[in-house]
């Protein structure tokens, strides 16, 4: 199905008008949001004209996993794929066409062409991290709902821009960490259930930060748009290992390199810190202080993130396991209901459900950005080897001109947020 073969205008307008007209119930843009539960075909089979029209941007590795999740949903009409590697986008197009027994799926090298299509309701984005914010904010400006893989941001400045853009256009915007809910449910249930009493701290374990990449030039493979892959990142010569999309965060893959990723602290940190902030219920906040504990003879450096309510999230604290909670069991706490996914089908199902109902998804971009702030703040503290104060509302390290330089990085022209 391409732009010329969209469903009948009246049906399409009904669905799209609804999706675009009803905002998320955020404080800044509050509108009445009465949602008739049966109005959008949620019960039973979904008519093609009422399916959510989806396109995908960045379809290798994790992106291909997301692609399969969306394509396999009966709630979705998948119409367009985008990747800077011709073989990847052609392969994805083939899969879409095989599913629908047609040749209608459009394949794009440039995400802007996909976003310009009026018939697309939602996009999923799984490019390397340095592209996320540019693509996601542009998608919001085009009225698309967004499912963006973690780590959602590469810098601290990108976070609030993503949230502002999503709220401005009342977009449903979900981050992409399925592990926050699915891997740490036991810890979450103990904390929220009151069994642990007053929670004091939780520890997160990740390994390395990203680092410089100086691999030698190699010929650019045919069909690979290297300039577009680099996009806003500093120019560098093509090397297959520089842009490899496997999940190695240490070496020979883009997740290991500073220009494209924060390394393990952002890649796994997006999961672990997401789980930790959920477990100790600080998803709506960012820390106000990052305490850097210098390495000692047999102990590596570690961090403590201090929240305004006194809760601490530690990172790599010696002797502590991942997601290990410290609490005072003598101070009882009443149990509270644990939020979870809406709809069916995990985190993608949650997103699709929210596209219809205009509710906030489980990993709403606001929560995701707060999680990512821990990853980025931690990276800066480790790099500068010192403690930091953080004012999230003003997006600044008060009185610390040097740390403030790390809040963002200039994007290669012509890319701009």
């Amino acid at each position, binding site marked *: 199905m391409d732009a010329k073969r969209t469903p009948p205008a009246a049906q399409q307008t009904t669905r799209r008008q609804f999706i675009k007209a009803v905002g998320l119930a955020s404080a800044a843009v509050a509108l009445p949001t009465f949602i008739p539960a049966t109005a959008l075909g949620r019960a039973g089979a979904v008519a093609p004209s009422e399916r959510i029209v989806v396109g995908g941007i960045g379809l290798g590795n994790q992106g291909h996993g997301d692609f399969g999740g969306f394509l396999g949903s009966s709630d979705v009409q998948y119409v367009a794929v985008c990747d800077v590697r011709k073989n990847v986008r052609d392969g994805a197009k083939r899969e879409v066409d095989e599913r629908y027994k047609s040749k209608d799926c459009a394949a794009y090298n440039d995400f802007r062409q996909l976003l310009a299509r009026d018939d697309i309701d939602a996009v999923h984005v799984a490019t390397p991290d340095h592209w996320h914010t540019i693509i996601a904010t542009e998608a919001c*400006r*085009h009225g698309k709902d967004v499912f963006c893989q973690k780590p959602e941001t590469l810098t601290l400045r990108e976070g609030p821009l993503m949230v502002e853009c999503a709220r*401005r256009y009342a977009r449903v915007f979900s981050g992409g960490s399925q592990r926050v809910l699915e891997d740490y449910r036991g810890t979450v249930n103990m904390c929220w259930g009151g069994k642990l009493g007053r929670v004091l701290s939780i520890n997160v374990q990740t390994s390395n930060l990203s680092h410089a990449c*100086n691999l030698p030039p190699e010929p650019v493979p045919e069909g690979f748009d290297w300039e577009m892959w680099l996009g806003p990142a500093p120019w560098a010569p093509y090397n297959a290992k520089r842009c490899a999309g496997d999940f190695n965060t240490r070496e020979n893959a883009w997740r290991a390199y500073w220009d494209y990723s924060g390394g393990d602290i952002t890649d796994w940190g997006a999961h672990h810190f997401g789980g930790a902030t959920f477990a100790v219920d600080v998803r709506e906040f960012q820390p106000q202080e990052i305490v850097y504990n210098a390495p000692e003879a047999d102990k590596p450096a570690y961090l403590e993130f201090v929240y305004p309510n006194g809760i601490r999230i530690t990172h790599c604290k010696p002797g502590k396991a991942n997601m290990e909670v410290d609490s005072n069991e003598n101070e009882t706490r009443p149990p509270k209901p644990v939020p979870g996914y809406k709809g069916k089908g995990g985190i993608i199902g949650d997103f699709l459900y929210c596209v219809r109902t205009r509710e906030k998804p489980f990993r709403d971009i606001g929560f995701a950005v707060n999680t990512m702030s821990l990853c980025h703040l931690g990276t800066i503290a480790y790099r500068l080897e010192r403690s930091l104060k953080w004012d999230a509302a003003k997006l600044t390290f008060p009185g610390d001109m040097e740390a403030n*330089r790390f809040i963002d990085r200039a994007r*290669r*022209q012509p890319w701009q947020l």
Partner: protein
Amino acid sequence: MLDEAFEALKTYDWGMDPKVLAPIDQAVVKTHNDPAARKDLESRLLAVLQSQAPRDAKDYVCRQLRTIGTAASVPALEALLAEAELSHMARYALERIPEPQAGQALQRQLSKLSGNLKIGVISSLGVRDQAASAARSVALLRGLLQDPDDAVARAAALALGDIASEGADKALASARPRPALAAVFADASMSCAEKLLAAGHAREAKGTYQRLLKNNPPELVRLAAQRGLKACQPGAL
């Protein structure tokens, strides 16, 4: 060790092990409270930047100047803004150097550049968002809103949306965007209105949303402006 690293930097090129430069990386961190050592480090980096060193070496220098560069680095960085290969990395440093000279260098070069290099400088001016120089940047960007190059006009509008001052809002209000740019101009205006509203200037924000609604905007903008207008009502926030 540091001397050896600077020697290696003179010929640093893609394919060399970045560990040879680790002593410079470490010196940047360790000199945090040592202005004299920082000044010396900056001078040595600038010497490489102004030499015939390979592009990769100069790229590395700009990355370090992003962290330790001062006004002393600005002339050498400004000289690179017109060089296609190094303009971005010059901005990589200039955009994050807090001294006003860095912003002034970007402002000076704006009229001398065209195409993508100009767009890059425009975006950096928007990001720097310094109170001391924002008024001058706003005036310069305002003049680009009617640029015949759509990409330049778009970049100027987004940069004004980044600055998001009352002056930026007025500059956008005075512009008459071509149809293809109407949505992005409206987006920038709403960015300004949101900042004005957050700063307690509800009347000005309301004026911006009302202006947008008067111009028969696309549906997406109309709905966003209506939500913004609603948020301007007393007690809405």
